[in-house]
């Protein structure tokens, strides 16, 4: 019983990382209707930046927030200088650009920071007096950080004029332009936010999976599964999907299929959702009159 509770709790912790990745994917999907395949590599690169900052003596949380800020700017730069060149290009072209970005950023991370696996310390204490045996401090901390991210993103889109303008630009770009919203800037900010959220996911994942250029590969797959499960046009559904996928993955890994092939759980979820309910649990089915 204790073992099961532990599996569920650590599934929720891993799920919080998937939730952040899913949220980042949805952020870009809502504005462009495209899935950013390079999201994971962007997060890995951000984590390397954090590693470098900590390695050069900066306190963890200072490095954390600086990394989030740098990632935001890098995300904006990617939109401004690369993605915007393909405005109006066929979908397949943009997909290839995303895959190209994936390979380029992956290689850049290896080239800048070497391919050797690095350990990345958790900012949370090594032991915890509370709930010992059920959940590790880093797991508990990751859940807390994820809820903080979700809360901030919610508040941003719900209560600020800029957040409202971004929603308007994503929903109806033509109308948004007519009321004076600079839609291109909103897109760039969306990329920045996605990159920043991804950076948080990377920094929370690195102490668990260790830091190497391919660190986010599996996690991105779970993130996709989460986004699809929750509904790729619904950020809160996608985040909840992250937690569900985390728990399912952990329980399946422990009791059903074993640790070695638990990544296939993500693929099973992706295929299952696409077959049974393509709009996801909380997504909206889009009906088009033909």
């Amino acid at each position, binding site marked *: 019983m204790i073992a099961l509770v532990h599996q569920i709790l650590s599934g929720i912790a891993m799920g919080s990382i998937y939730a952040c990745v899913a949220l980042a994917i949805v952020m870009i999907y809502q504005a462009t209707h495209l899935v950013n395949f390079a999201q994971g590599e962007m997060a890995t690169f951000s984590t390397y930046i954090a590693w470098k900052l900590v390695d050069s003596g900066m306190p963890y949380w200072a490095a954390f927030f600086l990394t989030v800020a740098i990632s935001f700017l890098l995300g904006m730069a990617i939109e401004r200088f690369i993605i915007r060149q393909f405005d109006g290009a066929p979908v397949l072209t943009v997909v290839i650009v995303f895959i190209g970005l994936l390979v380029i950023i992956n290689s850049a991370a290896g080239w800048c920071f070497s391919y050797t696996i690095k350990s990345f310390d958790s900012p949370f204490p090594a032991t915890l007096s509370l709930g010992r045996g059920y959940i590790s401090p880093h797991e508990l901390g990751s859940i807390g950080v994820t809820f903080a991210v979700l809360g901030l993103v919610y508040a941003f889109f719900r209560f600020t*004029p800029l957040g*409202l*303008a971004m*929603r*308007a630009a994503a*929903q*109806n770009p*033509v*109308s*948004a*332009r*007519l*009321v*004076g*919203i*600079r*839609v291109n800037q909103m897109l760039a900010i969306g990329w920045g936010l996605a990159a920043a959220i991804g950076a948080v996911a990377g920094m929370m994942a690195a102490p668990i999976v260790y830091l190497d250029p391919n660190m986010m590969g599996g996690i991105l797959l779970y993130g996709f599964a989460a986004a699809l499960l929750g509904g790729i046009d619904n950020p809160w559904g996608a985040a909840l999907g992250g937690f569900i996928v985390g728990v399912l993955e952990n329980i399946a890994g422990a009791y059903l299929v074993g640790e070695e092939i638990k990544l296939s759980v993500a693929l099973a979820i992706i295929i299952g959702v696409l077959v049974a309910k393509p709009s996801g649990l909380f997504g909206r089915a889009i009906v088009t009159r033909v």
Partner: protein
Amino acid sequence: MAALLETQGLRAFYGATQVLHGIDLAVEDGGITALLGANGAGKTTLLRALSSMVRREGTIRFGGKAYNPREAEDAARLGIAHVPDGRGTFLDLTVEQNLRLGAYVRRDRDAVASDLGRAFGYFPRLKERREQQAGTLSGGEQQMLAISRALMLRPRLLLLDEPSFGLAPLVVRDIFDILRAINRDEGVSMLMVEQNASLALALADHAYLIETGRVVIGGAASALRADESVRRVYLGY
């Protein structure tokens, strides 16, 4: 009265296709000008050219100055509000959020709050539905929302693209009465595209008839109403 907006040799293009072939028109300051014409004549394109949604050549003067916004985003900043065809509602946002977006470029927060009250004054129905998702409104209510959203900019010129489209005659009459009141009380000039020529000529003081991207007749609305060919083809009696 002086002209608020004046175009000279206005041409507009969709890609390589030229749709407007040199339009000269003027909108009087404080007046209502109607654009009449059949489907495909270029009326909607003319409005789109004015708010830089399509490629445009020719000269435009607005408020006595050269008017040359590069992007559609800039037209709103210069005081031109555009109610597009199809109403351009932000369907997933609430009525109030739609209205607040109309004032996106304004920085005078207190005045925006009082303008929200004024918009609700013209359209009390929107006040009742303030927190409702705009996508759940009826067609008439969405048109009211589109007009109110445009007013939230406090524009000098309001571009209206077929405000009567797809609405029941009674609703259309209400909306046109309110447009008249807005024009009178707020002093907002209007340039209106309208299929329903008799309705448009009753509201407007000036009108232009456009055919295949050119002005055929332009002048006082009463003169167009009296014109033999306009009467036969567009008013149908």
